[in-house]
């Protein structure tokens, strides 16, 4: 079931909330509230493909059993066995065909591909449960009750596409005596956050999708885009991806809040980042935390130990402690996004970006850095970071390495740069002397010509929201407590409150969102 569907908004959600409050009104045990939420979450998951419920349920049961075993008996064999169980499931459902495809290419033969449908959410609940297993081996999860654990994994707001939640963060909230008590504040804040997320998804992201689709799909089938088309397409896609995915995360945060659960922050105005490391501290935060803590740190720590004990020179130290662990962690992070070479390249590009950033921040003196920053200003560093990200998303959006390369080349100007005649006055004439820049129809494929100027207005409006409006956690600062607090107070300081103005804003956004619900457009991150 999708958050942006009539059946969810007008059937499922009201029913779940009503019965959730009814159970405590009638003074039933808290256990029944938890059971009701588990049942609802399984129904939510099974709506899409009932047979895969068996996969989800058995994964929860088996992992809980393994975890409790590990609490009692710290055995590395059980730990390896239990983690392998998760990785084998993920490997089969997500990577088996990719493996066959590459093996067939390598051995120059062909295999029969298995008809595997990727189970929704498997990438997310696999990660969450591996963290649980690792902590169980340290005896940290011995007190977890089965029904509480089952709710932690299946809880529908975060089940399908994150945020990737940590048991240490969620289990105490479920176990807390106040969980399940009716609070008007939870309902009001939760629904408000949810509708802002829904607005971002169905009004902004889905509108952009109408422009992005024709352009980038044309590139996919081999139509040569113009320079301007390729850039407009990719900029629009970058905004679409942001509003789509952060909108989804907002909806998840809002829904969880209705039931009194605070989910972790997943986005914190990422496009305002001044360098790539900051970008990953603000974009899909729960994923980058996982990559850092469970992929990068263990390897880098081992290598740093070696480098420091053996007193290696600075080049070998950098290679061993940064270069190798970074490419390893980000190559895997790319592969996590999907079973295709495109995603691996996407991950490796970010690995390289981060290596370059580290090289720069380690070799240059802080004083020189601050001088360069004050010279360039935040604007240019933000623009540079954004450009790097957009370039990497070419590999994220296209379906094959070939179409990604052709789009990248178009964007760099390999196939010439054609600008509209009106630009002529602003561009130095020597650039057009050897036909490097030509003037003419910049949108000659007609892919955007239905109303290209509308797209420009929309992109400006999006930029305004991205750079000036407070993010969801800033807007709800006084009513939604998260442990994480980051810098970058937005220039426009408005806050949600129990007043007519906030009610009006949310009602308008909600109405627009519901009016825009047309068909059911999937979330971009569902495929992962």
């Amino acid at each position, binding site marked *: 079931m999708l958050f942006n569907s009539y059946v969810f908004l007008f059937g499922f959600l009201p029913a779940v909330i009503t019965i959730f409050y009814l159970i405590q009104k009638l003074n039933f045990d808290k256990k029944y509230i938890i059971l009701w939420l588990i049942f609802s979450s399984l129904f939510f998951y099974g709506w899409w493909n009932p047979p895969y419920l068996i996969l989800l349920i058995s994964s929860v049961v088996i992992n809980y059993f393994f975890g409790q075993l590990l609490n009692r008996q710290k055995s590395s064999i059980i730990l390896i066995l239990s983690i392998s169980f998760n990785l084998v499931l993920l490997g089969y459902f997500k990577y088996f065909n990719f493996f066959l495809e590459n093996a067939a290419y390598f051995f120059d033969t062909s295999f029969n591909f298995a008809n595997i449908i990727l189970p929704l959410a498997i990438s997310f609940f696999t990660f969450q449960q591996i963290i649980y297993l690792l902590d169980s081996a340290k005896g940290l999860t011995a007190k977890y009750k089965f029904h509480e654990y089952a709710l932690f994994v299946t809880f529908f707001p975060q089940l399908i596409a994150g945020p990737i939640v940590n048991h240490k963060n969620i289990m105490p909230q479920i176990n807390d005596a106040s969980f399940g008590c009716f609070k008007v504040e939870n309902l009001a804040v939760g629904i408000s956050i949810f509708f802002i997320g829904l607005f971002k998804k169905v009004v902004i992201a889905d509108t952009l999708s109408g422009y992005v689709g024709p352009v980038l799909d044309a590139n996919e089938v081999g139509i040569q885009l113009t320079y301007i088309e390729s850039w407009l397409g990719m900029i629009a896609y970058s905004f679409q991806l942001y509003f789509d995915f952060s909108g989804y995360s907002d909806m998840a945060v809002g829904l969880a809040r209705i039931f009194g659960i605070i989910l972790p922050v997943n986005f914190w105005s990422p496009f305002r980042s001044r360098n790539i490391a900051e970008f990953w501290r603000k974009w899909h935060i729960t994923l980058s935390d996982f990559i850092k*803590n469970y992929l990068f*740190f263990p390897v880098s720590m081992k290598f740093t130990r070696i480098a*420091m*004990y053996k007193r290696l020179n600075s080049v070998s130290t950098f290679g061993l402690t940064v270069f190798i662990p970074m490419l390893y962690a980000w190559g895997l992070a790319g592969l996590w996004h999907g079973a295709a070479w495109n995603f691996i390249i996407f991950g490796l590009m970010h690995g390289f970006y981060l290596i370059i950033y580290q090289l720069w921040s*380690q070799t240059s003196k802080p004083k020189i850095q601050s001088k360069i920053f004050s010279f360039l200003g935040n604007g240019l560093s933000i623009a540079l970071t954004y450009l790097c990200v957009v370039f990497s998303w070419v590999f994220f959006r296209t379906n094959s390495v070939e179409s990604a390369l052709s789009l990248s080349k178009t964007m760099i100007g390999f196939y010439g740069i054609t600008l509209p005649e009106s630009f002529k006055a602003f561009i130095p004439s020597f650039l057009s002397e050897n036909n490097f820049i030509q003037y003419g129809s910049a949108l000659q494929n007609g892919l955007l010509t239905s109303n290209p100027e509308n797209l420009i207005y929309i992109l400006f409006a999006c930029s305004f929201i991205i750079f000036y409006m407070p993010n969801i956690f800033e807007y709800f600062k006084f009513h939604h407590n998260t442990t994480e607090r980051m810098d970058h107070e937005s220039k426009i300081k408005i806050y949600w409150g129990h007043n007519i103005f906030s009610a009006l804003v949310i009602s308008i956004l909600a109405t627009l969102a519901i009016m825009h619900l047309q068909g059911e457009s999937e979330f971009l991150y569902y495929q992962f």
Partner: protein
Amino acid sequence: MSSKVISQIQPIFQQVFNNSEISLSRETTAQDVEGWDSLNHIRLIISLEMELGITFDSNEVAELTNVGDLIDYIESQINQ
């Protein structure tokens, strides 16, 4: 106990972050020390390992981003 550990780790901080003016308290966090990012965090952890003769668990170092938690962890390791 805490103050003893602080006086032991302060010079290590000064060396790793290349700043002799760093003065630590239990409340110091990663935001307060310039350059305390993920990579320098690892360098800090391994330097602490070398100087104090303890080992850190790779899954737990990510959470030790303030001096108070670091001291508690170090003390639990020394007492073991």
